């Protein structure tokens, strides 16, 4: 099953290659990885979706290994927390002017937007969960997708919920109470 991790990392050159090298080296299977800036210029944020066939044991390994990287500040597993998850796709569809309305209609249903119109193609922009985007792609495919790009998943937990942190004490900023942490070790 897919697990979703949020990692805060120092905003330094090479951090992304450290993370991807680690996943390759340890044989973890990345489904999606998205990196971007945060409100803190020194910190970047990664949302990493990984296939974890052994469930929590794999999740434990992934967190522990990420902390081996000196530039990784914090890791949480948000798989089982209430969260907002989004992926953005730009989809270029080859469509003659007569059938444009059809694409428009689909876009409306999915709350997607047409962001570019050319004589025989349009670009649809859709934001949402993986499922929603897959659904839209399925319906556009018969019309004729010629190009597509996706950003990869980004996630944020809702409200005050935090993800699970399995590494006791690795993150001093958040954990002072070691006994509380102990309960989280699988």
């Amino acid at each position, binding site marked *: 099953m897919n697990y979703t991790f949020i990692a805060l990392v120092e905003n330094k*050159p090479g951090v992304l290659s450290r993370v991807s*090298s680690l996943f390759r080296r340890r044989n973890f299977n990345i489904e999606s990885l998205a990196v971007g800036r945060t409100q803190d210029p020194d910190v970047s944020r990664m949302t990493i979706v990984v296939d974890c066939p052994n469930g929590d044991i794999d999740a434990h*390994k992934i967190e*522990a290994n990420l902390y081996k*990287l*000196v530039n990784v500040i914090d890791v949480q597993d948000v798989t089982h927390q209430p969260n907002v998850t989004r992926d953005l796709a730009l989809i270029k569809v080859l469509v003659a002017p007569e059938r444009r309305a059809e694409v428009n209609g689909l876009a409306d249903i999915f709350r997607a937007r047409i962001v570019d119109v050319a004589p025989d193609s349009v670009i649809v922009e859709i934001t949402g969960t993986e499922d929603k985007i897959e659904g839209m792609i399925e319906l556009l495919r018969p019309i004729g997708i010629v190009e597509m790009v996706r950003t990869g998943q980004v996630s944020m937990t809702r409200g005050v919920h935090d993800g699970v942190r399995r590494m006791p*004490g690795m993150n*001093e900023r958040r954990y002072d109470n070691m006994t509380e942490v102990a309960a989280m*070790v699988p």
Partner: protein
Amino acid sequence: MKLKGAEIVWECLTREGVEVVFGYPGGANMPIYDAMLNYPIHHVLVRHEQGAAHMADGYARASGKVGVAMATSGPGATNLVTGIATAMMDSVPVVFITGQVAAHLIGGDAFQETDVTGITLPITKHNYLVTRAEDIAEAIREAFYIARSGRPGPVLIDICKNAQVESCEFVYPDEPELPGYKPVMRSPKALLDDAVSLLENAKRPVILCGHGVIMSNAEEELMQFAVKTQTPVASTLLGLGAFPASHSLSLGMMGMHGEAYANNAIQNSDLILAFGMRFDDRVTGTLKTYAPKAKKIHIEIDPSEVHKNVFVDVPLVGDIKTVVSDLIPMVDEYDHDEWLEEIQGWKNDADTRSIMNWKEDGKLYVAHLIADIWKATGGGAIVTTDVGQHQMWTAQYYQLEKPNRWITSGGAGTMGFGLPSAIGAWFAAKDQEIWAVAGDGGFQMTAAELTTAVQEGANVKIAIMNNNFLGMVRQWQEFFFEKRYSAVNMVTPDFVKLADAHGVPARRVTTREEVADAIEWARNTQGPVVLEFKVEREDAVYPMVPAGAALHEMIRRPVKA
């Protein structure tokens, strides 16, 4: 104070207490070598950068301090790679400093440009590419801190040539600030309680002592804990020396070539307490049948080692010295007399099979030779090894009472490690006796460092166990490939003449009668000495757990009439 980047390098090394640096110059680190002349740190010019890496490694293992090795860019840096991987696998703190082409040339395939931080990314604990003089001090400060703290390991700093020649204000940073690097030292009380109750219910406990015990200086705590709870102690290859071999609770080495009684104890145990070891496949055999009846407690500073190979019941992430100190007052005194008696039975059986009981048959056996060296040196020498059969015999028969004297490449199994690591160790312990035990194969991989030993006057005694075979590979071919010997038969040079050409006194030994005298002669001869032992060609290391077999499925030495 305004300084050039190259001077900053040496200022920082001086402040880190570095006494000796092993290295090799070239185009991209010439400014560093030029600045070196103004600083009192001793530089050892090696003959191949791999030698520098192993020397720094041997120095670190013998001293408990951080070793330092240097090389130029491109081929200089890539020659370090085997040594970096070796240090990584055995968690040895070494700082590597490489020269890099000028920052503005990076990415253009400049002369001797290689992406060294890329190449070493998976085999360093951390690495740095420094493009400006302003960043050198911070990188070095952090590198030393990262290398020696937490789970130690190698850190590489790649410094661009322009950064070496540019000047900037030199400030040596205070404690490095690393928001993402916080090694955990203590385990939570709740988990310590769990560990204590597992021990309370255990009838057949075994401690597995790994390199971490030595790295954490926890030998004293291990002893107290083992004695208080009457728990026998088996060691990994790298854990040897942490617990005295002569102690009645010592089980010696475990694993592929471990003592049968150590492996039997593990397989029959109901509680394993793993101290700073990582359940390597060489110590577990197949995991399917590994210690099937045992609950497991794992004390380990690196959380990624917990549950990696073996799922444990109580993970105690933290510094071993700290965690075991916390545990000692919490545990009761136990006696496990029945269990210890059962183990004694296995020990007695092993004694009857021991090669030490063999009658003399005029041949030279490495096991005998190691025992002879052990006797002559009172078991107190620093011993380095190369990799192969001789390494395992040395582990088995050079019985160690104390830590930091046993220097061998365990995780990586790097041939060529023995001689250079001994030279490095000598710089850490010039007043101690140092022996390097090497095979004929491995010795030839880094034999060029003999002249380094001469140039430095390194007082190391080199015992070459010459079986004219890549012995360990030959043994596997004998056992598992129907004795089809493939690429293991090795012509060797005349090692005595080879040593002579280097100005190194040497003797060849072919019979057991000559052994004691040769060893004494080597011990009494100042500086590097080579002893070539012409040993039995097709001897095998026993016991042996075949790769992928269960730990109790050992091939035992046939009992001779």
